[in-house]
Structure formats: structure tokens, C-alpha cells
């Protein structure tokens, strides 16, 4: 499968998808660690994540898919939300929690 198709399937097949360096348990970059912490603070513990450090095609692919040159990248219901800065801003303003609550049914 083409890398863009693979990414499309991943982001549309999961309510919340995070492309990161490392894993949620063992992030390998401060920005990716922050992204995971923000999701946890928003009550999201179960989300799709992919480690771009283990897959060079994916690492390049997600940058082109979102026209976004950095990792992490957060998607909600297939829509690119942003990287670490935007996640932080939207977390502090409360927007991210609202967006996640609307996307992920409680319980």
C-alpha cells in the first residue's frame, strides 16, 4: 500500500491518532512526550500512535501528508489538528478537551 493511503487509513480509522518519536510509554523526544501528556490530561489514554523513528517512510510520509515538517502530529477523526505548540495552546484554552470529548464518547 502507498504510504499516503496507509496514513489515510490510520488517521480516519482511529478517533485519535498521534505520530510521534518513540512510544506513549517511552517517548524519545520532549515534544512527543508533551503531546502524550496533554492527551492524558484530557482523559485520552487509548489512542492510536505510531513511532516514526522505526519507519523512515512513515516519518517522511506524515510530513507530506499534512504539509507539516515536524513531529509530533495529532489527528482527530482524520483531521490534522497540529503539532506540539498548537496542542499546548488548545489545551490551555480548553479547546482541545472539548474537541476530544466530542470525538471520543465518554466511558
Amino acid at each position: 500500500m502507498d504510504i499516503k493511503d496507509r496514513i489515510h487509513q490510520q488517521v480516519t480509522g482511529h478517533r485519535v491518532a498521534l505520530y510521534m518519536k518513540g512510544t506513549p510509554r517511552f517517548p524519545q523526544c520532549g515534544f512527543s512526550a508533551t503531546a502524550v501528556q496533554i492527551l492524558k490530561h484530557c482523559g485520552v489514554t487509548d489512542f492510536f500512535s505510531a513511532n516514526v523513528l522505526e519507519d523512515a517512510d512513515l516519518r517522511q510520509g506524515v510530513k507530506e501528508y499534512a504539509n507539516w515538517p515536524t513531529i509530533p502530529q495529532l489527528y482527530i477523526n482524520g483531521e490534522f489538528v497540529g503539532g506540539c505548540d498548537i496542542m499546548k495552546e488548545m489545551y490551555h484554552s480548553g479547546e482541545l478537551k472539548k474537541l476530544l470529548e466530542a470525538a471520543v464518547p465518554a466511558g
Partner: protein
Amino acid sequence: MVRPEDIQAWIESGLPCERVEVAGDGAHFEALIVSAGFDGKSRVQRQQMVYKALGGRMERGEIHALSMRTLTPQEWQAQRG
């Protein structure tokens, strides 16, 4: 090594800005960018405009990490109180 003033100059040359402040240590940088061009744009679109102004330097890894705040002049005024 990339200096904060380099990043500031690159952003200013690619994007009309009211204000650009960049701080950093050569690997990690933080920028405040105030531009009327951000008016009506989403956060994602604003950062994409800055990345574009940087002309592929993020993509090529010349700039390792750049955190940014992107504000319109009105938002900047409001934040300063």
C-alpha cells in the same frame, strides 16, 4: 550553527511581519511572530506560513526544533493587555 537572528531574518524575508522575536540555543528555538497575514487563518495555516517562509530549513533538518506563537496584531495587543 543556526542563530536566533538567522531564523528571525528568514521569517521576515518570507513573511511580512509586525514583529518577530526568536530565542534559542542552536538546537531548540522559540519564536513569537506577529503578522497581519495571520488574520482569518487557522493555527495550522499560520504555522504552515512560517514553515514556508523558512524555505525548507525545517524539512532539511537545518532547524531542529522551533516552537512558535503566531498572533495577529490585534491578538498581540490583547495579550499585552
